[in-house]
């Protein structure tokens, strides 16, 4: 047990040690610094693997290394449960990929040493966030993550656009910090402790009292706000697409590692947040809007990195939707899977021409009508959505948020089968069905795996049937059906012409970046730019 505790706290410690090297020293010895960063990463991956193994065999670990009492007990310790262990391995793994990538990619940059230094410090901060065992540690790590990321975002200080985007993020992050700080104070006053175990144990009882319920609801809401700022939720997203003024590995780390911190926050504090039902509903609604907004804007982007950025916004929205609906295992699956996917997408963004060449095939005109194919595909997809959970003996519809997740799955499989049917010009050819089945099986299998893996370590919200929930589910469902219709329209030139107005606004991101652009210009007294 102690071994796991030590291993987990060594992960950020190693990165911290490398990151504390002075910038001048690092810049003068880029090769040494590269070696150190990669070495630290490899070691951290090993340690994280150890933690995951430990947690898998002996469940969660807690340890306190330092203790101080200043009216309220302050501790320095670790809390490694399945959630933390998963995130540890994910982030250290990405850390290894990204530091290795940056070694050659930034070769010859005069400030490569500095870059590596701040990369290590950022990783150290995120890892501390993941293993922290009390709210104070969490909040400090949260702020430090954003401050060290700021150093990476302003790596090219001579690029005005880099400064603007970093400052946009800076403003939003400070807003998030404020939310977390107030939550921290509220927790201190309400519980008299910052320790997770105390909080999580007492939250249930506290929620039953009227006053306590109210406080918890506020705390939950504040955390939801904080999560929104970190995970670029609508309308606080506009800094993210503008961060391409920083080297590609930073984008990979940010989109795959750091941006998940918002989701992690909701999962980590789920025992508190579940008591804030309207906070969760708000989160679900914002998540749904973000998902749809991001995905629609993404469609109209013409540069590879901007497309990826809006895709991240959409994916984070969907993850938050899952969080808001209480589908925590699905949200964690989403975090892990999306991180791997997006890290790869960013790092391989130079291959976009090769990907395009691999998809270039002579066009054949389909003979079957689109409507017929759609109907057939929908029927097949319906069967898939029914059969594949059954393979795993699971019934997602009973799980929190199950209805929406099933609906989205159904629409996605319909789309997949329909697309393959289109290019084959056949109704539901075997490979389309096989693909649909494979996707469904993989999805529900993984969902079940994460559900079992998390076990009882996170709160399990019971789906209570409020009218509000039905309205929410109905709203989000209508949204997803709406984008399904949009996609259907975009298939033909005629449909694209009819939607030309929407196209222009979507390609401009619905102008939502402008207010923040103005605010930055005002705060830093710089030129307004866009």
């Amino acid at each position: 047990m102690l071994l796991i505790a030590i291993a987990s706290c060594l992960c950020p410690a190693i990165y911290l040690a490398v990151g504390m090297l002075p910038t001048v020293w690092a810049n003068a010895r880029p090769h040494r610094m590269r070696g150190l960063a990669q070495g630290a990463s490899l070691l951290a991956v090993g340690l994280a693997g150890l933690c995951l193994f430990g947690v898998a065999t002996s469940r969660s670990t807690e340890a306190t290394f330092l203790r101080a009492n200043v009216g309220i007990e302050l501790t320095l310790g670790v809390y490694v449960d399945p959630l933390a262990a998963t995130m540890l391995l994910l982030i250290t793994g990405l850390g290894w990929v990204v530091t290795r990538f940056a070694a050659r990619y930034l070769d010859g940059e005069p400030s490569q040493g500095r870059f590596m230094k701040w990369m290590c410090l950022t990783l150290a901060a995120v890892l501390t966030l993941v293993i922290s065992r009390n709210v104070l540690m969490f909040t400090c790590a949260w702020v430090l993550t954003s401050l060290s990321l700021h150093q990476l975002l302003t790596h090219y200080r001579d690029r005005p656009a880099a400064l603007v985007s970093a400052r946009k993020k800076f403003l939003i992050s400070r807003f998030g910090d404020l939310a977390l700080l107030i939550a921290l104070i509220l927790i201190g006053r309400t519980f008299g402790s910052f320790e997770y175990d105390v909080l999580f144990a007492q939250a249930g009882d506290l929620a039953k009292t009227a006053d306590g319920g109210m406080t918890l609801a506020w705390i939950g809401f504040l955390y939801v706000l904080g999560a929104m700022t970190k995970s670029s939720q609508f309308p606080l997203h506009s800094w993210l697409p503008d961060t391409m003024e920083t080297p590609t590995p930073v984008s990979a780390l940010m989109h795959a590692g750091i941006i998940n911190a918002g989701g992690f926050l909701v999962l980590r504090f789920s025992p508190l947040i579940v008591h804030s039902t309207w906070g969760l509903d708000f989160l679900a609604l914002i998540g749904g809007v973000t998902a749809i907004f991001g995905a629609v804007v993404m469609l109209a982007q013409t540069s590879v990195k901007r497309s990826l950025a809006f895709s991240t916004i959409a994916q984070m929205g969907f993850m938050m939707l899952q969080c808001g609906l209480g589908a925590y295992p699905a949200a964690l699956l989403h975090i892990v899977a999306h991180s791997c996917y997006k890290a790869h997408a960013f790092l391989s963004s130079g291959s976009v021409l090769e990907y395009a060449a691999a998809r270039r095939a002579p066009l054949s005109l389909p003979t079957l009508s689109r409507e017929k194919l759609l109907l057939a595909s929908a029927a097949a997809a319906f069967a898939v959505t029914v059969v594949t959970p059954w393979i795993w003996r699971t019934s997602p519809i009973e799980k929190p948020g199950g209805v929406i997740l099933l609906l989205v799955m159904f629409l996605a499989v319909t789309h997949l089968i329909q697309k393959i049917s289109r290019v084959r010009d056949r109704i539901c050819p075997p490979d389309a069905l096989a693909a649909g089945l494979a996707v469904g099986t993989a999805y529900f299998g993984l969902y079940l795996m994460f559900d079992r893996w998390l076990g009882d370590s996170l709160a399990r919200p019971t789906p209570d049937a409020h009218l509000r929930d039905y309205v929410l589910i109905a709203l989000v469902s209508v949204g997803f059906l709406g984008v399904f219709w949009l996609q259907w329209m975009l298939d033909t030139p005629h449909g694209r012409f009819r939607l030309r107005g929407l196209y222009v606004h979507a390609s401009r991101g619905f102008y939502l970046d402008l207010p923040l652009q103005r605010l930055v210009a005002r705060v830093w007294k710089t030129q307004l730019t866009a």
Partner: protein
Amino acid sequence: MPLFTAARKGRILWDDLTTPVVLHSEFDLEQIVLDAQSAVPPVWPLQDYVAVNPFLGLSSRHFLDAGARLRRVRDVETLPSIEQLREIFQRGGFDQNDVAAVAIRWREERADDGISPPSAARLLAALNSEDDIESRGYTGVRSMAELLAETGGTDWSRIITNDLSSFCAAHFDDGQAAWPSPWKHLELFAAWLESSRIDQRLERLGISAFREFVTRLPSRPIDALRDLLTRSGVAPEHSRTLLDAQLASIAGWASFVRYRTQHLPEAQRINSDLAGLAAIRLAYDVALLLADIQPEMAIRFREQFETAGDDSAARPSQDELLRYGLLLAAEIGYQRRLLGQLSEASSESRGTRKSAQLVFCIDVRSEVIRRHLESIDDLVETFGFAGFFGLPFEYVELGADQGPAQCPVLLQPAFKVREAVEGASDDEAHRFVEKRARLRNWRLAWKSFQSSTFSCFSYVESLGLGYAVKLLTDSLGFTRPAPLSRFDGVPRRLHRQVGPVLQSACEQAIPLKRQVELARGILTNLGLTDGFARLVVLCGHGCETTNNPYRGGLDCGACGGHTGEANARLACRILNSSSVRELLAESGLRVPHDTWFVAGLHNTTIDEITLFDRHAIPASHATDVVALEVTLAQAGRLTRLERIGRMGASSAEDTFRRAKDWSEIRPEWGLAGNAAFVVGRRSLTRGTSLGGRTFLHSYDHRKDPDHKVLELIMTAPMVVTNWINLQYYASTVDNVAYGSGNKVLHNVVGQLGILEGNAGDLRTGLPWQSVHDGTRMQHDPLRLTVIIEAPRTAIDGILDKHANIRNLVENGWMYLAACESGQFYRRRADGTWAVAA
């Protein structure tokens, strides 16, 4: 009549917009637009990336004056910085004697301008001090947006560039956006009108009623230009300058539009698009003028043309003269060493039949491996020849209908060649094509699943975890991020059989007569008409790099930014054909029966040479081939060893990693370092190391009595090397204007070009990482030195005939020297020749 009156700031005023515009009608605006257009260099899309001379259209002026001309409208640098020159000097690129020789060279190059060169003492003082020399700053024309941006407030310059850039990206997008612009089929200007009638961005940023303004513009670009020129209030005689300035502020997309108006197949060209782009850009400026944000800036905008508009008065500044003098010194230094090496070269050995003759591309990277090949085996002879081997064709990949042009961009493909699987029956071939279509269609459907608005979430959740494995294997170099699609649908055992074919059942073949002409063309232009070895290898070249959007720039420029494999294989097939040889023999060009042509590909990243179509090689040549392959492998090893130093690599094997590593920012140096083009017999250059800095073209003037071959070399390969040289030169001296900036910020836009960072103009030219290794320049910005082994009279005759290349030589865009009976002569700007040391 006032064009605007004072009113609320930011509000465009309309009072006069219904008045018919007559002011400019007496001008031949169409001609002005055409002139402006011809000064814009084209840029090719990334997949066909080739080097372009960024100073295209300026060669009728002297090199030094062209800078002043460009700086009328754009803040660019055309000379190396003093730091760069000091770096070359400190590295020993030139010495005090070279500096002393500047005065003479200056007068040779600029006979009549009356500017006296800086003294050698001043030049040396500038080299030896640490101080910056003072430059006078930018004095040219600024756009209204730039003028407003300089006053603080709103950065209109950046806003408008980003706005226009993202519109162009959407209009020309080649498949990035899943939701394409609904107006892609329209002309650029018409599409912009449609889109800008809806777009609220500029209004929200402060130009109110911009959409109404757009609605009232004439719909034809040329009419709109006339209207806007009038409304700008700029005096009509400055129209050309105004247009130049407007196009310069969106130079990258202007270049791309120029490519589309000139280099696309005829049917796809839209000639009005450049006028359209100018009109769009001007519309923004006129909107800003009429919006009356800062009236005093509007006045300044109009007045600046009086002072900055005229380029005849623009004289090079003192600091430019100083740096130009030092550039000359650096070039003198390089030429001194180069000529020293050439004159020391051993004399030609004749006699025994060679065991193998290898023909490489003129590319500078060929020089290194050729030298090592010859050093290993005396019986190996090498040649340099433009890497498309005289076959300008369109290469259509298996199962496709059209394909890229496998020839220099100065030429148009003359015929179409299809890729096929040799040895496969028609049935089989059909199956492969079908399989390929299925595979790629599957990927297409999959991509749609991955990126549609609602299925992207399920994609990530069901398959995203798989990318964990992919991240690992890609990082370790076991796999590459994107599939190599060249052999899609073809079983592995047949991969080597995929190539160009002369005959195919379903396709018209190249007529035999044409084949004979092509064959004769190759051999005579190469000067290989007798003394054939048993093996003649035609060796194209290509790079091997992963995750690199600029791969086209490392491939063969003579093959239109693609590898030279198809050209080499096709050429060998023609030359090995017995019927072709018979007809060749009838016309007196006898290729021995025991000579076999083998196609090869020089992988310039790892310096390995692969031979193709091994199965077709007669058994009698099997041992020759094996022996040759041993030599090739050895030469590759030596070449890699030589490259270690320059690559900053720890071992020669590091090159293999660089080819596969998806994070590698400098897979190879490409043509960086190029400085000279030597046309002549190999005896001139054999046995001496030219450091991978020279293009080499084989030429034997004794076999070319009427100088037809020389004319071809001087009008085609020489121009291409000049383009490449000037592209590297410009990307080094001003990477902001002529290069594509920092590669770690590159963002591929529309699957056709590069943005640096979030937005901004389309970037052209080479990334900084391609010319600089972080501590020193890997390309010294020197103008090309061309050395031709031929009689001076022959060279003069050709220059007289072709004004475009005479301009290049006489206006300082390149140096020309002749080698005649062992003596070198330098051509002066006045057309006379001076004996070179």
